[in-house]
Structures are given as C-alpha cells and as structure tokens.
C-alpha cells in the first residue's frame, strides 16, 4: 500500500526545474503529481511518476541528487470537507504528517492526497484500521 516518491535536490537557480522535467520527458517518464518545498537557498522537488525506478536511474545519471521515499496515497472525495475528514481520521490514529500534497484525478473526480509520514508501516496499519482507503503504487503510477 505504499507509493514510491522521487525526491530531487534543487538549488534555487534559474532553469533547474526545467532540466529535471526535461530529463524525465526525454525518457518518456510521465509525471503524475509533484510538489516543491523551498527555502532561501534550495528546494526539494517531490515527484510521483509512472515509473519511479526508471526516473531514479535517469535522474541520477543526469547528475542530480535523488532519493526514493515511500509515501502513502489516499483517495479523498472531491468535495468540501473531504480532506478534513481524512486528516481528522489520521489525527485520531495518531499519525504524524511530515508533509503532504494533493492533486485532482482526471477520471474518477476524486482527489488524491500524498502523505509523507514518520513511521510508514505503522501509519498504514492505523489508517486502514480507521477505514481510510489507501491506493497502491500501481494504482497511482497508472492513473
């Protein structure tokens, strides 16, 4: 029930984001979702792609500092309060969120929220006990 996220270190410099996405494009890797965390000097690009192993390999070869992180993807009803419901359940389960980002899915009209949590295995168990619907890696990669 885990999804592989690709994280890339980026300096706050002109053109860095473009070059990461260009590398992925040239290798026919499709981006499903992404978010950027930024500070004054640097940023961390987080990506969900259709082929994380390949993305990791080609970005490394292109000279980027890359890591693979396991995250949790949750289907969230695309309506007011949809995300709040999920977050409350996670809070009740005692799951601590490091960061999250969300995107709206094209076909099913649901939103998908990606969570990076502290202890991922425990979090999955606790969230499932609360009845939160988690998406598998393949479900997300093939959206």
């Amino acid at each position, binding site marked *: 029930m885990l999804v592989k996220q690709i*994280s890339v270190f*980026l*300096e706050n410099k002109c053109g860095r984001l473009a070059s990461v996405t260009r590398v992925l494009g040239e290798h026919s890797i499709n981006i499903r979702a992404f978010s950027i965390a930024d*500070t004054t000097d640097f940023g961390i690009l987080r990506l969900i792609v259709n082929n994380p192993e390949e993305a990791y390999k080609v970005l490394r070869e292109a*000279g980027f*500092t890359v890591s693979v992180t396991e995250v949790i993807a949750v289907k969230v009803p695309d309506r007011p309060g949809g995300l709040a419901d999920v977050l409350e359940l996670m809070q009740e389960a005692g799951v601590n969120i*490091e960061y999250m980002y969300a995107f709206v899915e094209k076909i099913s009209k649901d939103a998908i929220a990606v969570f990076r949590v502290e202890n991922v295995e425990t979090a999955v168990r606790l969230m499932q006990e609360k009845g939160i619907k988690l998406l598998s890696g393949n479900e997300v990669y093939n959206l």
Partner: protein
Amino acid sequence: MYWNEKYECMPRSELRALQEERLKETVARVYYEVPFYRRALQARGLGPNDIHSLEDLPKLPFTTKDDLRDNYPYGLFAVPLSEVVRLHASSGTTGKPTVVGYTRRDLDIWAEVMARALTACGATKESMIHNAYGYGLFTGGLGVHYGAERIGASVIPVSGGHTKRQIMIMKDFGSTILTCTPSYALYLAEVMEEMGISKEDLKLKGGLFGAEPWSENMRKQIESRLGLLALDIYGLSEVIGPGVAVECPEKQGLHVAEDHFLVEIIDPETGEQLPPGSYGELVVTTLTKEALPLIRYRTRDITAILPGSCPCGRTHVRIDRIKGRTDDMLVIRGVNVFPSQIEEVLFRISGTEPHYLIIVERREQLDELEVWVEVSEQVFSDEVRRLEHLEKRIRREIEDVLGISVRVKLVEPKTIERSEGKAKRVIDRRQL
C-alpha cells in the same frame, strides 16, 4: 622618531656581530635544551658550537609548523614550564592549535619590539591607543597592549566588536592611535559615516594594521577616511606575535627587528637561500627568545628582502608586504583558516569524500566566509527540516573548529568545478 635608536639604527657591522653572537648562543641552547633540535643538528653532523657566522646559517635545519604540531603542546620549549609566564595559541591545519610560550624576558622583548612599532606610527607617552585587536589566545591584542604600556601611552583595551560603541569611545576618549586589522579599520570608517561622525570629530593620528593581507589601495582609503598615518605590521605567534617587522613612515617595506629576528628568503621548493630582491618564503630564526627559540622557521609567507637602505635612518633590513602564502592557508579576520579543517568536518558529517568550495568575500569591509557543500545521496533527505538541520550542523561544527562565523550553502552535485589533480577549493574574491 625611534623608540630605541641604539638598536634600530645600529651600524650594519655592529648589528652583524651582535646577530652572530646571539645565533651561536641560540644554537647552543637549543642543542642542550630541546631534544628535537639536538637530534636535528646531530643528523646534520652539527654540534652545539659549529656555527660561527651568519654564513653558516644554511647548514642549520628548518623548523616547520608541522614540527610544532608534532611536539604539541610544549615539546619545543627550551625552558621548564615554571619559567613560562604566558601562553598563546594559533590555529593549525588540524584540530590542534600551535602553542607558544613566553618567559618574562620574552614578554619584555615583545613589548620592546612593539614599542618600536608603535613609535614608528607616531605613538608617544601622550598617546591614547585604541587597541581593537582581539584579546585572548590570539597574540594581536596583548602584543599591542604591552608595547603601548612600555611606551607609557594610555591603552584602551577595547578588543574586537561593538563597532558603534568603539566609535563613541574613540570620539569621547580622544583616541590618537588605532590598532586593528586593516579590514576592520575600513569597517570602522564606514560605520562612522553611517553615524554621521567625520574624521575631524576624532583625533586619530596614526595606526598599525596587520594580521591579514592588505594593499596600497586599502592604505590610501584608511588614511583618507580616518585621517591618520597607516602602517603595516607583520608578525606571527610562532615567532613572537606582532612586531617581527613594521613599516616606518617612508612606507617602503617593513623593517625587521633584526637584533631579535634573523630573516632569510628561500626558494620554497629547493630550500636554497635567495638574494635580496628575490621573492620567496620568509624564514625566521629567533635570536633572543627563551621559551620557544626557533631555528630557521618556515613562515610560509611570501615576500622579498628589499635591497638598499631606508632614508628613515633605521638600519634593519626591510621586507616587502606579504604577497601570499606557499600553502593554502587563508587569513580571515585575523584568523588562520586551512581548507583541510573544513574538509575534516565535512568528512565527519557525510562519511564520504566531500566536494566543497570555500568562498571568501569582503562585504562592507569585513571578510565573509561561505562554504558551498555538494549534497550527496548519503546526506540528502526529502524533508526540508533534515536538510536545514544538516546545514546548521555543518555551520556549527565548522564554526567550532575555526572560531569564526561562516555561511553554509548546500548546492547540487557537480556545481563545484572538478579539476585534474588538486581540486580548486578556494575562491578568494577579496579586493584588497
């Protein structure tokens, strides 16, 4: 104006005789008192009485900073610790500093050479000496302090920092002589301008500036903005501290206190002595030091002995401004910084060969040190707080080792140019 005309203007022949006598005494003393030197002399087939004239100097072995480090802390001392009344230290290439000791008589000699230096820039017993060199293990502060007291001037031991307060003190106390690093002198000038205080509000007449490299251009700026005579002073803690050599108002090189320090210029590659006018590594032999006498100490500073005599009347030889270093040491705000110190910290944190670049810049007259570190996979994290924590940890550990503040910037791999052989680790953008 001289402090000690007899010695400062001694005829060359007399000075030479004095130097030879003192050199012989020094060699004999280190032979008997310092096992390191006894072994080094014996290895060259020299006994305690085999040095007869200055021509014999090239027979003597060199002493390096590594020798001081290998004998840390007191191994090269030639007197029992009970005779040592003061210790100072300077940073070295590794975590261990270089420790130097002084007997009562060493402090006396130091005060003497500093009194000469201060007198050269116009200090008298009427002077109010504003000493903005740091007090502590660094020799700058106390070196000036004792020289100023020797003259009978009034010393304001203001030390570094609190710039606005320093300017208020200079104005209210009527400081006439300023001693600090040249970059700090310019910084003082800038803050004065911001505070609306002009050089006419102050009484400055002269100043000694050293502990870091500077230039004629900086001298012009310091002189015009602070309204004083700015002279260069040279020294290093291993030898004694500031006062080894100082400019006179002719500004044509720094007179070495030759009755106490014997200087040579050598080719740093071959170790051969070079003639006056040639640039090479400055080598100093102490002639009167008791606690830590040094034979042919390799300073790693590049300069030349200037030929000819000086119109000021002093007979002691002059060396040119320090042109650079034979190693990769940087002097930042008077503190010695070796890239290897930073490398060690990075290695400890990342566990791998670090790729880094040290950038030195002078902003608002103060040297700033920035360290760029490439983020390797070993230390990378997808969480901002972990990377920020890493940045902070690198900064804190470097600051602990160097004792000065730095800025750390995480950069992408391959940002830092790789070159064949020796990597370029330092970009010094300071415009002196």
